[in-house]
C-alpha cells in the first residue's frame, strides 16, 4: 500500500496535510522559522490582526495551570498595514497557505480589516475571531450573541472573496445553533474552539494572576471539551471544521478527525515542542497506515456510536 494521503482541500485551500498551527501560538512566521520548516505546515495561521495596531493587555498575560495555560494577551498586533509590510512578504517565501486571524471591536472594524487584507496578494483565507467583546454594544461578545455573530460574518462576507472561517467561542453552549448560523451566513469552514474563559488567583496577594483578571484556558485541560464541541457542530453543518484544543500528539488529533473535524490546529503544544505540528502530521500518516485508511479524509466523522 502506498503511503496514506494527508492532503486536503479545505474551503478551497489546498493543504499538504491537515495540521495547521493555531492563531496566537506561532506568531507571524519568523519566530519559529529557524526551528520548523513552515512549508511543512498544513497552513500557517497568524496571530489575530485588527485594522489598526493594538497594544493588548498589561502583564502578567499568561499563567500556567493544571494541564493548561490561561492567556490574556489582549490581541496585541501590528495592525493590518504592519502585518502586510513586515510579515506577509516573509511568509510568502514559504510554500504554505497563509490564513489570517482577524478581529475587531465593532462590526465595521471587522469589515475594515477584512477589506484591507483582501486587497493584498498571498492570503489564503480569513479566520474570524469572534471571541472579543463588542465595544459599541456593551460587553456582549460577538461569539455568544447570535445576532451580532451573524452580523459580523455577513459584514466580512460582503467585503471579501476570501474563504471565511469563523472561530467559535467555547462559551457558546448552543454550538450547533451557532455553527448553522455561520453556515447559513456564508462561512466556508469553522474553527473550533477558541480558549475557554477562566481565571486564577494568587492566594497570597489575593490578586488575579492575570492583569486582565480573566483569560482563556487552552491546552490538554480543554481537549475533552473541544472534542465534544467539534462533534456537536459536525453533526449540525456540512462545511468543514478545523478542530483544536489541547492537541499534542497524533492520537489527540485523531480524536478530532473521528469526531468530525476535517483539519486540526496545534496551539499551546508549540510552546513546549515547536515541531508538534510536524510530528502530529507524521503520526497521523502512521495511524492511517495502521488502520488501512488511504486518506485522512476517510477518517473524518467516523465515530461509531
Amino acid at each position, binding site marked *: 500500500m502506498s503511503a496514506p494521503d494527508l492532503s486536503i482541500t479545505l474551503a478551497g485551500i489546498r493543504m499538504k496535510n491537515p495540521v495547521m498551527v493555531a492563531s496566537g*501560538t506561532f*506568531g507571524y512566521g519568523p519566530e519559529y522559522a529557524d526551528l520548523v520548516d513552515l512549508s511543512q505546515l498544513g497552513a500557517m495561521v497568524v496571530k489575530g490582526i485588527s485594522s489598526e495596531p493594538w497594544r493588548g493587555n498589561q502583564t502578567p498575560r499568561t499563567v500556567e495551570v493544571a494541564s493548561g495555560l490561561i492567556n490574556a494577551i489582549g490581541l496585541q498586533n501590528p495592525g493590518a498595514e504592519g502585518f502586510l509590510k513586515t510579515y506577509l512578504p516573509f511568509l510568502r517565501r514559504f510554500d504554505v497557505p497563509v490564513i489570517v486571524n482577524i478581529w475587531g471591536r465593532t462590526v465595521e472594524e471587522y469589515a475594515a480589516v477584512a477589506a484591507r487584507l483582501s486587497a493584498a496578494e498571498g492570503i489564503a483565507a480569513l479566520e474570524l475571531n469572534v471571541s472579543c467583546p463588542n465595544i459599541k454594544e456593551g460587553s456582549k461578545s460577538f461569539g455568544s450573541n447570535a445576532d451580532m455573530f451573524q452580523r459580523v460574518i455577513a459584514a466580512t462576507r460582503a467585503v471579501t472573496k476570501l474563504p471565511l472561517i469563523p472561530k467559535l467561542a467555547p462559551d457558546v453552549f448552543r454550538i450547533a445553533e451557532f455553527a448553522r448560523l455561520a453556515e447559513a451566513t456564508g462561512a466556508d469552514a469553522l474553527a473550533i474552539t477558541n480558549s475557554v474563559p477562566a481565571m486564577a488567583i494568587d492566594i497570597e496577594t489575593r490578586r488575579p494572576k492575570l492583569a486582565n483578571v480573566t483569560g482563556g484556558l487552552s491546552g490538554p485541560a480543554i481537549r475533552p471539551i473541544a472534542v465534544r464541541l467539534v462533534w456537536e457542530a459536525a453533526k449540525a453543518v456540512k462545511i468543514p471544521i478545523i478542530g483544536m484544543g489541547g492537541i499534542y500528539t497524533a492520537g489527540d488529533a485523531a480524536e478530532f478527525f473521528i469526531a468530525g473535524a476535517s483539519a486540526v490546529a496545534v496551539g499551546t503544544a508549540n510552546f513546549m515542542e515547536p515541531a508538534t505540528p510536524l510530528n502530529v502530521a507524521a503520526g497521523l500518516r502512521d495511524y492511517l497506515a495502521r488502520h488501512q485508511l488511504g486518506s485522512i479524509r476517510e477518517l473524518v466523522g467516523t465515530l461509531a456510536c
Partner: protein
Amino acid sequence: MQLETAIILDHRDYGAGYRLLRLAAPQIAPQVRPGQFVHLRIPRLEASVLRRPFSIFKAENGELALLYKAIGRGTTALSAATVGEPLSLLGPLGNGFPLDLPAGRVPVLVAGGYGMAALYLLARRLAAPGLVFVGGRSAQDILCVEEFEALGWKVYVATEDGSRGVRGLVTGPLDAWLAEGCAGRTPEFFVCGPNGLLEVIGQRAMARDWRAWLSVDRHMGCGVGACLTCVVKLQDTDGTWLWARACKDGPVFESRQIHWDRIEEEA
C-alpha cells in the same frame, strides 16, 4: 537558536540553595553569548505546558552549566533529574550583553539572586576585569563570589542581615564607590537581578549619562517571540511606549530604552 537534547553530566548542590546542572550540549554551547538563556523542558512535569527559562552560567567545550534554585513546581521537579538523563533545550535565546566596551570604561556588574550566574559568563568573556556588586538577604543567598575573584574581579558583597559583606542593600557599597569617584573611570553597568534592582541601577546610570545593560526577568511562554507573554515597555520615539519581547528583543535592554513607569515585578 535550536532544539537540542542535552545529556546531564553532573547535578549537584552548589551552595546558597542553588543546584548546579552540567549538560553536554555540543550544538548549543558553542553559540552562547553572555546574557543569553535556554528554555528547558522539565522532565516528568506532566501537567505543565511551559518550558522554564534559565540563564547560562558556563558554556565551554560543548558543555553548558546552569545554576538554579528550586523555588516552585518546575525547579523542584528539575532537582530530581539524574546524571545521564536527556533534557530538551531550546536555545540559545535572546540577545546577550554587548562585549565591546568603549575605551576607558570599567565594567560594573550588579547582581541579586541567580544574577551572579548570568553575569559570570560575561565576566569570563569581557577583555578585562572590573567590579562586581552583589546583594542578598543573608550570606546563604550570595553566589559565586570566589569564581569572580578567581577571574581577577573585585567583589563587593552586601547582605540585609550583615552576615556577609556590609549590612544593607547592594546600593550601599555601590553608592560608596560612586561617591569616591569610581576610581576615576567611567562605569558601564551590567545588571541581573530583581526588577527593582534593575530600576535602581538604571536610574543611577541615566542620572549621570552612563550606560546600564539590564537583564529583565519576565515570565515566559514560548521563549522565541511568538506568544507575547514576556513583554516589557520600551520608550517609543513619540514619547509614548511600545512593547518589546524580553525573550526575543531582550532580555538585555539598555536603561534608556525602558519605559520606567511600569516594569512591575511578577510574583
